[in-house]
């Protein structure tokens, strides 16, 4: 597609439930990133995928958070047993990847606004 897309755009869930957030990166981009943005704050890195390499999970805040990327394209961020402090905007970005012209420039999707009641 023309840009990074994310779904759903908004998600309201009850504390303790699991949620799945989806990201479709820009076609051909090999690198995919997840960030979290709390209200009025900057972006916090969560996880990074580059091609077939092992993902960099160093930003995941707890073992309730996980992500996968199937077929080197679509990614799903899963939050298990959601807590109220998980409420935030979850942003996905993609970049062309290593060795590509301007391969490090990250382009963001519109985000998923998660509210945990």
């Amino acid at each position: 597609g023309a840009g990074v897309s994310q779904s759903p755009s908004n998600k309201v869930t009850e504390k303790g439930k699991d949620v799945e957030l989806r990201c479709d990166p820009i076609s051909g981009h090999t690198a995919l990133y997840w960030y979290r943005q709390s209200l009025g704050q900057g972006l916090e890195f969560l996880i990074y995928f580059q091609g077939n390499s092992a993902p960099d999970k160093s930003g995941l805040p707890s073992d309730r958070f996980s992500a996968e990327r199937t077929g080197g394209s679509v990614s799903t961020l899963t939050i298990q047993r959601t807590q109220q402090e998980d409420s935030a905007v979850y942003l996905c970005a993609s970049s062309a990847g290593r060795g590509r012209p301007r391969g490090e420039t990250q382009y963001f999707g519109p985000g998923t606004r998660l509210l945990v009641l």
Partner: protein
Amino acid sequence: GESVGLHLPTLSVQEGDNSIINCAYSNSASDYFIWYKQESGKGPQFIIDIRSNMDKRQGQRVTVLLNKTVKHLSLQIAATQPGDSAVYFCAERVAAGNKLTFGGGTRVLVKP
């Protein structure tokens, strides 16, 4: 840990004037810097980036300046327009890394 530091002021600018947004970073190992614009309810939009081997880069109405001596980054917007009203974030990437570390953002309000 080391991080990009961007205080969160609100910058009020008269339409047509130039805007300057400043950012301080502390990680001397950072080799790539980028500015994003974020409008309410939207994801960050790429504005301009610069590698550490440069000290200035220009785009359309925007200029990024990098001073590695004092670890300072700035974004200049020429002839600020109402559509420039948004929150602006700077971010850095440590050499050989991939993730971006973001500052807290600056809100720019353009007065007509």
